[in-house]
């Protein structure tokens, strides 16, 4: 049976498809698990840890592009509580 299904070029393609699908099954989540967020909790990894730098950037965006706001804070940090 396996000889019939996996013979020739079509067989090779079927085998590749099978391997790819089963390998994809090993991909569980895209986000880090809550207990693995140690690096994201570090101060250098925060999106908004330097208020002065943020203020400078906001001023530049406003004066050069006339743009303001647009800052979101989702997804970073340790996710505690």
């Amino acid at each position, binding site marked *: 049976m396996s000889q019939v299904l996996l013979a020739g070029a079509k067989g090779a393609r079927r085998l590749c498809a099978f391997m790819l699908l*089963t390998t994809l*099954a090993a991909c569980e989540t895209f986000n880090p698990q809550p207990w693995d967020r*140690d690096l994201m*909790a*570090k101060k250098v990894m925060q999106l908004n840890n330097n208020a002065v730098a943020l203020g400078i950037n906001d001023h530049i965006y406003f004066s050069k592009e006339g743009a303001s706001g647009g800052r979101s804070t989702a997804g970073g940090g340790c996710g*505690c*509580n």
Partner: protein
Amino acid sequence: MPLRAALFLPILLIVSSVTAASAGALDLSAYKGKVVYLDFWASWCAPCRQSFPWLNELQDTYRKNGLVVIGVNVDHDRDLADGFLHKTPASFDIVYDPDGQIARHYEFSGMPTSVLIDRDGQVRFVHAGFFPEKRGEYLAHVQTLLSKGL
């Protein structure tokens, strides 16, 4: 011959994911008949600094009633955990889970998380996060489980 070799990789992945899933459970058979308060903590988790003194108090008060508080540490670096314990000591048992095996078994979605297990080994309550204003609620859950099975 090449067929067998080519099928090896996906079968290996499936088998390893199944065995990894079952390998992680903490062996709580020694605590049958006791209420287990399993607290997942880490050195980088700020609310844990507040939860530890409360957990110490909880353990000391209810040890005689059969409460066992176990802190499961999920730090990848043991030194960080020891540093945290030096500043915020624990009067309860600590279990180290750097690979996250135990954490994965309980499948929670935030840190810190506490899992309350009753005297028969069933998970009854899960506390997501630690909020000082909810300490009364946490205590009520503990007392509910302690009052059963006596």
